[in-house]
């Protein structure tokens, strides 16, 4: 398990996935992980690594289109959920049920572009981790977690 706050540099997608897996060791069912960073910083890559370490065997792809996706995960989890709020300007006036399928006591939820819905997200579960990814040029990414 990695200590928090964590500050590291990844030089490849595979390394980003490994950091994600290590950081996921501290997660518990019901937790919510916020992931910030510009387009192309590897947010989906991070979720893929985390999901794999939590027992997801299905292919983790971008949920931008459907807002959220769920993947069957290893017990005690039912699912790992992957939410992407990129398209939304705010959660305030979306249906309160918009994320109902994607958070819960037997789910760990990863949220990309969380800024528009912080308050709502806090009401859905414990915000266990806030990960920030940034470009360092080429394939290098700075990864911060708190």
């Amino acid at each position, binding site marked *: 398990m990695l200590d928090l706050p964590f500050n590291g540099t990844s030089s490849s997608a595979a390394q980003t996935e490994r950091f994600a897996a290590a950081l996921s060791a501290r997660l518990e069912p019901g937790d919510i992980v916020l992931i910030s960073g*510009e*387009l*192309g*910083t*590897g947010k*989906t*890559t991070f979720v893929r690594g985390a999901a794999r370490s939590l027992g997801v065997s*299905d*292919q983790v*792809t*971008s949920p*931008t*289109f*459907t*807002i*959220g*996706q*769920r*993947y*069957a995960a290893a017990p005690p989890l*039912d*699912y790992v959920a992957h939410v992407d709020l*990129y*398209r*939304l*300007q705010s959660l305030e*006036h*979306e*249906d309160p*049920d*918009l994320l109902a*399928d994607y958070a819960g006591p037997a789910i760990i939820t990863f949220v990309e572009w969380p800024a528009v819905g912080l308050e709502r997200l806090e009401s859905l579960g414990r915000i266990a981790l806030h990960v920030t990814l940034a*470009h360092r*040029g080429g394939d290098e990414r700075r990864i911060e977690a708190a």
Partner: protein
Amino acid sequence: MILAIETSCDDTCVALVTARGEIRSNVISSQRVHDRFGGVVPEIASRQHLSLLPAALSEALELAGATLDDVTLVAATRGPGLVAALLVGFSAGKAVAAARELPFAAVDHLHGHLAASFLEPARLEPPFLALVASGGHTLLADVRDHGPAPRLLGQTLDDAAGEAFDKGARLLGLGYPGGAALERLAVEGDPEAFPFPTAARMRGLDFSFAGLKTALLYKVRELGETEAERRRADLAASYQRAIVETLMIRVRRALEQTGATRLAVGGGVAANGALRAALAGLGVAVEIPPAVLCTDNAAMIASAARYSTASSFPDYLELDVYSTGERPR
């Protein structure tokens, strides 16, 4: 006759298709409200579906010269898509069937895209290789029969091709939807100006567009605002070329691997001129349904319903939708 309803994203679609696969009507009520928000807003899409659906249903019946008495099977898209949007069409479809004790087919949206090729008059018979590329999906399938479970050869590991178009358009400051705008701009540009990545070193038949997206972002930054603005057409043309090439690399590999001699293409990205031009040079028979059958529509859902197992009344009353292909364990 088959009545089909599709509301997985932002088009409210109702179609009537005969048991032989002839389209009698194919109504698509496009929700024009999303463009100014830079993307589909789920709550707005769902509200629009509910408002537009009754009129779309009457229009579809009227155009087909039919009444509900002529309907022998009802179908609706079950997923993947926006859950709240899917629920409108799926609830309505189940209810139409239930009130008349008709059988009901819950159709997978991707099966629908493949089944667009099974519609008359330009019917394509399996086996063939299929490429589906849209805002939500990008996949290659080896289609050996008409059923809902083709052999999946490859899919995107991150963004869908249409999403890559939209996100690229956003980086270039174009409007939404970005695909068409980017394509228009690209016409004036040099596709060789910038060598954007196509994930060519990636083995197999899976797609990846994330690296391309990042490369465009870096290039825009590197050029600086003024220069990026001046070379916008070149950026658009090069970016588009990279998306098309990313698709084509896998298509060529898949053709080689399967020995398929025919390729069917579906999804909104099939409307892209550069992709069409590239496909035309493949040397195999390429079948692209009319544009209206490539983008989301209900005729393709009716077509898929012909080859799905329909539930008889009342076995389908408790069916629910899904956002992705996942099922609870």
